[in-house]
């Protein structure tokens, strides 16, 4: 199956937040009560009930002021930290390239939360109750049926597009070169990051301005418990069992012989 991708063109985005609402509607996520923080950016952060959130970024000062719009949601990495650490394989790579998610399998351990370089997955529930982790599923239930993700479907300005990843890459690159004359820092984010993201961003400024990691990486700490401590654990446990078994065999004979000799 051809790899699919979402292309988000920040230069076309009007920040209407229709995508945020469509995401909540399709995935049946309730709204959240928030307080006015002096910005239209709302809710303040991703949460178990908010898988997609638009960012409102103010750059510069009087005379040279720009209002940039960004998008925060799962980037559907090819080499995803969350998938690498997930013990129950509730998170997995779908044939269509995105990071799929089976909530019923989730053990609520939270490793994915910390392993994500984009700070996307969010734990639901309380520490003393049943927990699951949640994130954008790229509307798996829609796209496998050939439909568009809810956010793309609702986008009015054409800032969001969905299709074969190669096609989205070509579109994104063409758009970046068209933007260069107006915005010399224009760039396409996601072509090679973490093996290639399945959400591509056309940006008018450096990725860091949009709150994106410049060179996202899966940290050593994220996978150390699997790569180092798991084999070490097998070795230590094996040595313990072997040692104890050996001790039993030897000690039983020697000590019985002794008590007979006495």
């Amino acid at each position, binding site marked *: 199956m051809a790899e699919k991708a979402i292309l988000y063109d920040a230069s076309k985005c009007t920040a209407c937040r229709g995508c945020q609402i469509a995401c909540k509607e399709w995935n049946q996520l309730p709204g959240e009560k928030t307080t006015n923080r002096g910005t239209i950016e709302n809710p303040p952060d991703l949460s178990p009930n908010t898988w997609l959130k638009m960012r409102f970024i103010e750059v510069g000062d009087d005379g040279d002021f720009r209002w940039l719009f960004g998008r925060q949601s799962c980037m559907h990495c090819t080499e995803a930290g969350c998938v690498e650490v997930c*013990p*129950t*394989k*509730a998170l997995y790579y779908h044939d269509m390239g995105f990071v799929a998610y089976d909530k*019923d*399998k*989730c*053990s*609520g*351990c*939270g*490793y994915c*939360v*910390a*392993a994500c370089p984009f*700070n996307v997955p*969010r*734990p639901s*529930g309380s*520490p*003393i*109750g*049943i*927990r*699951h982790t949640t994130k954008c599923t790229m509307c798996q239930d829609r796209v496998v049926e050939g439909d568009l993700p809810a956010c793309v479907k609702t986008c009015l300005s054409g800032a969001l597009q969905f299709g074969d990843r190669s096609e989205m890459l070509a579109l994104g690159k063409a758009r970046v070169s068209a933007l260069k004359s107006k915005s010399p820092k224009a760039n396409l984010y996601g072509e090679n990051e973490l093996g290639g993201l399945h959400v591509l961003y056309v940006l008018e400024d450096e990725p860091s301005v949009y709150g994106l990691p410049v060179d996202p990486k899966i*940290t050593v*700490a*994220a996978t*150390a*418990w699997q790569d180092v*401590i*798991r084999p*070490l*654990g097998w070795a*230590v*446990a094996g*040595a*313990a*069992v072997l040692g*104890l078994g050996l*001790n*039993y065999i*030897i*000690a*039983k004979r*020697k*000590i*019985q012989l*002794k008590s007979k000799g006495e």
Partner: protein
Amino acid sequence: MTTSAKAKPGSTPASEVIFGPKPGSGEKVLTRYSKQVRILHWVTAITWTILFITGLILFVPAFSGAAEGSITTLLHHWAAIIVCVWAGVFFVLNPKGSMEGIKFAFKWGKDDIGWAKAAVGYYFFGKEDKMPPQDHMNTGQKMWWVLVLGAGALMVITGIIMMFFKTSGAFMWAGTFHALGMVVLLAMALVHVYLSVFHPKMRGIFWSMVNGKVSAHYAESHHKKWYDEVTKHKK
């Protein structure tokens, strides 16, 4: 411990087949563990077993399916809460005894070096002549006790980070050390269970954690210093 089952001559109750013989009825016994200590031990034993199992299934890919649906995570969290609260209650009820017990773990002397030198001969071949007299806890038990306190504290601290601060940058390192602590504790817990239930020289000592009593003979041969101390007090 009140056992109604009167052993018929020549037949051993199933519990004694598994856990070793109890001290004989005519044998002189000493009190080794108070009721509160025994309850603390078994609360710890049961909760740690739950913690090991529910933790291990995340660690072993073949079993990880058992963690689906978060039930094991819930058990893990509650077992941790129960053992922490229980240890706290124990400390509040016995502040003096607890402090003495904790201090005991860090009392080391030349007999401990002697123990280390004699340990292989003693535990494998039953050579008793080189083994120096031991206190209420011998050197091996003290090492286990230090580990329970030290690694236990590590597990509590890293566990709290993993439970309440999932989005923090510290989570991953906490998880790494939590896994490392588990490996060490599990290996040593196997040693602990083996020595107290199966080792030919210790066979039957399991019952001291059930009824608190240990035969005077066992006390004298395994914990001479402690034996001298308690029998002196009694006289």
